[in-house]
């Protein structure tokens, strides 16, 4: 294996990528494989499968982004977890360590939400400037990279007990598209990673490496080319630009807290949908008084988090839902767009379980007394599912700079979010369906559980055909700054009903292709 590269701060020929998750980590490897010199700035540390801890709170302490953030809006998270709007990861590999592995392609109609859903009052819908046909080859590559089950000849995972309850109830209600999902978790050995051992704790990092994560695939493979240097504990502070309006480098605080400046030929921002707009907003200048690449005023706007929620059912006998793959189970029938249900867009239902410590924290935050504790008393007899639906982009659901500062003196992100009526109608529909599913299997009690702090953070630097409607073009390139790219879920124009990681990875592979071509042509 070649030694990982080491580049000089003054080397202005490198591409700097901020963030190393499903977007930044994949982009870094893809560029490095093509011979592009890359420096990744990652705010977190390095943890590999042997470091992951199968204990919910201890793992949270190890991996989660717990730097300050502030919240506002009427979402319940702002009340119950006011400083923790998201459950995402601060580490090399980013939230690809934490994700559950569900890898679904967008449905064709979801690329054109504005066209297909029509006018939705209060929603800021827009069509993506790309579509399913354009994305198909990139999805193919992404699925092969991640080893997604149920496609490419790869068998699906076996269903655990939680899935069996879910499947039986779903089929009793007449649902047809019910299976263990398209999962980036190996059902058989694949790409030098072993198969799933049904251990649970998918959210805490897969200790077997059976689940794909950039932390132990794309990152080390990129480093092995000799073209990639990953600097951990490197907290990006500000992107700099020249008088011509081209970005020239990134200022960051290194592991010792010293401010450094890495020069760059090109900068890609992939810090998740809170940190990416925060970095652009914190990079304001005389030329960009409202934030870098923000002539449209769209940076930070249209924050989406998926319409989520959970349903737990209690049964007469044990289920032991925590045993086995956390999210290998899906019902796709409700993912269709069918306004007759009282809302536009659709939702997926996916199996989910939490361990006892997190169940206590998230089942009904703030609740106490016997209604709450008798539910936990039946923990062993619980089955669980998660709702993932398309939420409406709204201009005022947005990330702005808070008055609060982090330990580096940088203004932190404030996340303002309120549900759209469409989100509420969808969630209520899904609660009813989820509870009906469990009652079909004899549930003695069902619980419509509120959304957790967000893991699907989308849309704060959205992609648009016209510069006035969004932040980046169809290649993730800033409308305002030619050598600045957005490479994470913040570029999503709309959220679709599907878990976003596969699409983030596919967009990153596609973007790497575009950047390498533009570099070769001398355009950037």
């Amino acid at each position: 294996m070649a030694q990982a590269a080491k580049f000089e701060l003054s080397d202005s020929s490198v591409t700097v990528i901020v963030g190393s998750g499903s977007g930044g980590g994949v982009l870094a490897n893809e560029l490095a494989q093509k011979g592009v010199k890359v420096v990744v700035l990652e705010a977190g540390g390095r943890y590999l499968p042997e470091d992951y801890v199968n204990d919910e709170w201890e793992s949270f302490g190890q991996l989660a982004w717990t730097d300050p953030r502030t919240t506002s809006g009427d979402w319940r998270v702002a009340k119950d977890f006011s400083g923790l709007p998201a459950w995402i990861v601060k580490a090399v590999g980013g939230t690809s360590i934490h994700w559950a592995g569900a890898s679904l392609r967008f449905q064709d109609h979801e690329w054109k939400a504005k066209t297909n859903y029509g006018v939705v009052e209060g929603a800021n819908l827009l069509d993506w400037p790309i579509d399913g046909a354009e994305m198909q080859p990139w999805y193919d590559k992404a699925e092969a990279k991640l080893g997604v089950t149920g496609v490419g000849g790869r068998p699906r995972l076996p269903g655990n007990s939680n899935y069996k309850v879910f499947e039986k109830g779903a089929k009793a209600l007449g649902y047809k598209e019910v299976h263990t999902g398209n999962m980036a978790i190996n059902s058989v050995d694949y790409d030098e990673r072993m198969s799933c051992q049904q251990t649970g704790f998918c959210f805490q990092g897969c200790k077997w490496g059976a689940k794909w994560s950039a932390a132990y695939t794309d990152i080390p493979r990129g480093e092995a080319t000799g073209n990639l240097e990953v600097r951990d504990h490197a907290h990006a502070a500000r992107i700099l630009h020249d008088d011509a309006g081209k970005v020239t480098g990134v200022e960051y605080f290194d592991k010792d807290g010293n401010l450094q400046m890495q020069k760059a030929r090109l900068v890609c921002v992939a810090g998740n949908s809170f940190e990416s707009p925060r970095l652009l907003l914190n990079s304001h200048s005389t030329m960009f008084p409202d934030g870098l690449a923000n002539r449209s005023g769209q940076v930070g706007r249209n924050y989406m988090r998926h319409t989520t929620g959970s349903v737990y059912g209690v049964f007469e006998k044990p289920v032991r839902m925590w045993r086995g793959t956390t999210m290998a189970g899906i019902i796709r029938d409700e993912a269709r767009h069918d306004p007759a249900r009282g809302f536009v867009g659709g939702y997926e239902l996916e199996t989910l379980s939490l361990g006892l410590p997190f169940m206590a924290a998230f089942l009904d935050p703030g609740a106490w007394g016997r209604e709450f504790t008798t539910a936990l008393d039946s923990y062993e007899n619980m089955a669980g599912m998660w709702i993932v639906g398309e939420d409406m982009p709204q201009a005022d659901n947005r990330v702005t700079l808070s008055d609060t500062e982090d330990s580096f003196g940088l203004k932190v992100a404030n996340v303002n979010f309120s549900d759209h009526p469409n989100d509420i109608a969808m969630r209520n529909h899904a609660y009813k369906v989820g509870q009906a599913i469990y009652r079909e299997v004899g549930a003695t009690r069902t619980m419509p559980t509120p959304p957790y702090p967000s893991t699907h953070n989308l849309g704060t630097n959205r992609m648009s055909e016209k510069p006035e409607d969004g932040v980046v073009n169809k290649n993730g390139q800033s409308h305002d700054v030619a050598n600045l790219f957005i490479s994470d879920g913040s570029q999503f124009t709309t959220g679709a009903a599907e878990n976003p990681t596969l699409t983030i990875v596919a967009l990153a592979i596609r973007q790497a292709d575009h950047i390498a071509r533009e570099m070769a042509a001398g355009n950037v």
Partner: protein
Amino acid sequence: MSELSKQGLTRRALLSRAVAAGALAVAGTGFIAAPDAAWAVEVTHVSEHQMATLLQMARDIYPHDRVGDRFYAIAVKSYDSAEQKAAVAEGIAALDKAAKDAGFEDYLSAGWEDERVAILRKIEETKFFQTLRGGLVTGLYNQKEVWPIFGYEGESFSKGGYIDRGFDAIDWL
């Protein structure tokens, strides 16, 4: 006579059992971890009445009849500190006042859980109550020794996961 006193959780019980003061640690993410379930609360900063009240509050906030007092004791032990002393005194005085207003001598004198819960409802918006409740979420449920009472098995990696140990063993469907 309070339930606690009937159970013998009196000064003698509170003071006589050894407890390693260092067994409780508040970790960086705000949860309390206890390496073992040995309990007994030796009070040095708060009164026995206050500690007995804290214990009963913990039971009434998150009542699990199969979870012994020792686990609740661990979860509230950290309130016996110089830093917490004033807040505990003020909070429990307010609670006992609410109990008096409801016709009881104090909180512990209300014999039925429903009666105590009605008193707690009167103070549930206070910082004291919310801090206690919030701390219990991790202080109680993150004790590994509590998990088996709920059937929760914790990590399975060290045993090779459940692939050969019943991940799909449901037999009643």
